[in-house]
């Protein structure tokens, strides 16, 4: 019976991968479009999602304290619902942008003939771990509300900021002039 389960599990893995292959919509990783996207992800994280003021505002406990003391129950409920939605959206956006940076790495690494499989496995697992941590935060916020894990939020924002700084070095070669060239190139491609 254990043998049967073992072989059926291998079958299930293959089935899942074939299912994703059938549904797959390939993206132009490693192309000029992907580089622009990675750059945009970096800008979105640094300028739009990770500024301390924004994070503190979304997860500000003082807002909740004020509403709880001043507003009726229905308003409190509505406030909590809305704030939870905003918090979840923020985590999702951060996760999406980090995924975009991961795509940039894989899109670049695949072309190196000296690629080290062991290192790539390590990186893939690390990225998977990081994405899971973001997902965990989403679950915590979904179940416990936006004020359930303030430290985790702060840490995640700090970590993502740090990631951006280092990723910025990776994308440093893509200066403004090259970015302009690539953007016009990709626009041309899209139009044709």
């Amino acid at each position, binding site marked *: 019976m254990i043998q049967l389960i073992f072989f059926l599990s291998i079958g299930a893995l293959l089935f899942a991968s074939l299912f*994703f292959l059938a549904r797959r919509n390939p993206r132009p990783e490693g192309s000029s479009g992907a580089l622009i996207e990675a750059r945009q992800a970096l800008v979105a994280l640094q300028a739009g999602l990770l500024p301390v003021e924004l994070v503190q505002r979304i997860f500000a406990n003082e807002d909740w304290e004020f509403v709880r003391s001043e507003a009726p129950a229905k308003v409190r409920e509505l406030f909590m619902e809305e704030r939870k939605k905003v918090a979840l959206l923020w985590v999702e956006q951060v996760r999406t942008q980090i995924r975009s940076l991961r795509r940039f790495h*894989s899109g670049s690494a*695949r072309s190196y003939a000296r690629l080290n499989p062991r290192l790539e496995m390590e990186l893939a697992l690390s990225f998977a771990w990081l994405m899971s941590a973001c997902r965990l935060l989403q679950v915590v916020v979904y179940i416990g509300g936006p004020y359930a894990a303030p430290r985790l939020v702060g840490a995640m924002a700090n970590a993502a900021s740090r990631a951006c700084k280092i990723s910025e070095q990776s994308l440093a070669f893509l200066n403004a002039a090259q970015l302009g060239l690539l953007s016009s190139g990709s626009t041309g491609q899209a139009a044709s």
Partner: protein
Amino acid sequence: MWQWVIEGGGIVVELALLLRGLRTRLFRRYYFFYTYIGSVILGSAVLMTILLKMPGLYSKSYWPVQLITLVTGYGILLEILNQVLAPYPGAERFARLSGLAAFAAIFCFALIAPFLMPRWSPGSVIEFERDLRSVQALFIFGLLALIFYYAIPIGRNMKGMVFGYGLYILTSLVSLAVRSYAGPSFLRVWSVAQPLSLDVSLMIWLIALWSYCPNPVPDPTIHLEEDYEALVTRTKSVIGHIRTYLGKAARA
């Protein structure tokens, strides 16, 4: 009757696939794949002849023929490696190392198997084929994982080739595993499921390989002005910092 329809239908589609390959000259591009198709046609013709002339020998002849096509089937995996990953040296190196490990495992297993199973019974042959199919299944799974992770685009020809062969391996693996567990009572279902899944795969290949559809090539104008080690070091550094922060937060 059903067995006749399935086997006969399979041969018709195999011939159509081969003729189409000759007409479109795809056999020159996908040499290993068409070698596999040729071996399947030959195997099917031999089995059909035996079924017609000497039906008693059919079950004894089935396994050797099946094992030959199983070995030539690795040519499809080689074809996919060559065609899909050639423009991506990094991903190709990764896949080749995994592939070599899989092939080494298969051949070691094939060398050891006669000592482990000195008397070949139908049951042991089924288990042997099941084990080889599971290695193929893991290989395809690994290959697809690489394709997904590195977001490698694949054309219609290759997609159909992988999907068709993957589907056939999946059906074979599951039916062989259940056959091995359930015993001869599953024989009737299995004797239909196995050739039927090949027919389905052949239909997928016929549609996917109707005309030449090359794989999208990566943009050659973009080159990073840094080496691989630098890229990995930076990415590892990013992840290391994020992990440290999140670890601290989790413990807090």
